[in-house]
């Protein structure tokens, strides 16, 4: 089971630049759906790749779904040469996303995120409208099912102020 709190703390303590997206961002905004992994869009800036690497190294990241023993090397160069990584770690599942469909990368999304206090850290989460927009763009069946809830949530959040 994914330890969301420990993963967020690891990234935030390393002062990594990242935006929480996906199911955890939806939960932060009030969605009632459970999710199994933490999805983050990370800044591709060179110094940030080093911070992401440092944050996750103690938890032995490995590509999710691959048999053990394949030559996956967790180093800054791996992050630099790749873009999106679906990882399993000792803390659970995390997707490191350089870009997302319909949203682009960190620089495009940062102005569409909100900084919130999460587990005692200031953490950026994609704002609810943009979360809806990128889920629409992704167009996956599982996203469609959740879009109804997110749209209702947006209305309820506006009513609540």
């Amino acid at each position, binding site marked *: *089971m*994914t330890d*969301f*709190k420990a993963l967020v703390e690891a990234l935030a303590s390393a002062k990594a630049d990242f935006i929480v997206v996906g199911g*955890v961002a939806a*939960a*932060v905004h*009030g*969605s*009632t*759906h*459970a*999710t*199994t992994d933490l999805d983050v869009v990370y800044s591709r800036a060179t110094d940030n790749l080093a911070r992401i690497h440092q944050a996750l190294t103690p938890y032995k990241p490995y590509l999710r779904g691959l048999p053990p023993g394949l030559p996956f090397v967790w180093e800054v160069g791996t992050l630099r040469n790749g873009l999106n990584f679906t990882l399993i770690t000792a803390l659970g599942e995390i997707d490191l996303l350089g870009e997302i469909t319909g*949203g*682009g990368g960190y620089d*495009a*999304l940062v102005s*569409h995120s909100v900084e*919130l*206090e*999460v*587990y005692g850290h200031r953490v950026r989460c994609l704002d609810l*409208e*943009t979360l*809806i*927009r990128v889920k*629409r763009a992704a167009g996956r069946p599982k996203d*469609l*099912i959740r*879009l*109804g*809830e997110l*749209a*209702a*949530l947006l209305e*309820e*959040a506006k009513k*609540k102020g």
Partner: protein
Amino acid sequence: MSWLDDPLEPNPVVEALKKDVDRSLLRANLDRTIDERLEHMASMQRLIEDLRAAKARQQSS
């Protein structure tokens, strides 16, 4: 400006799906703090994992 700045237009499929949403659950969640929402989600995840483990034990016995 990017398309992310455009107004979010209503989508007929989403509007149809929205009708079946239990808004009382959303309102209850909006009354929680962010940490409480995440803990609530994590507890749901733990319950699902426990039920899956129980099912696997039952099937193997």
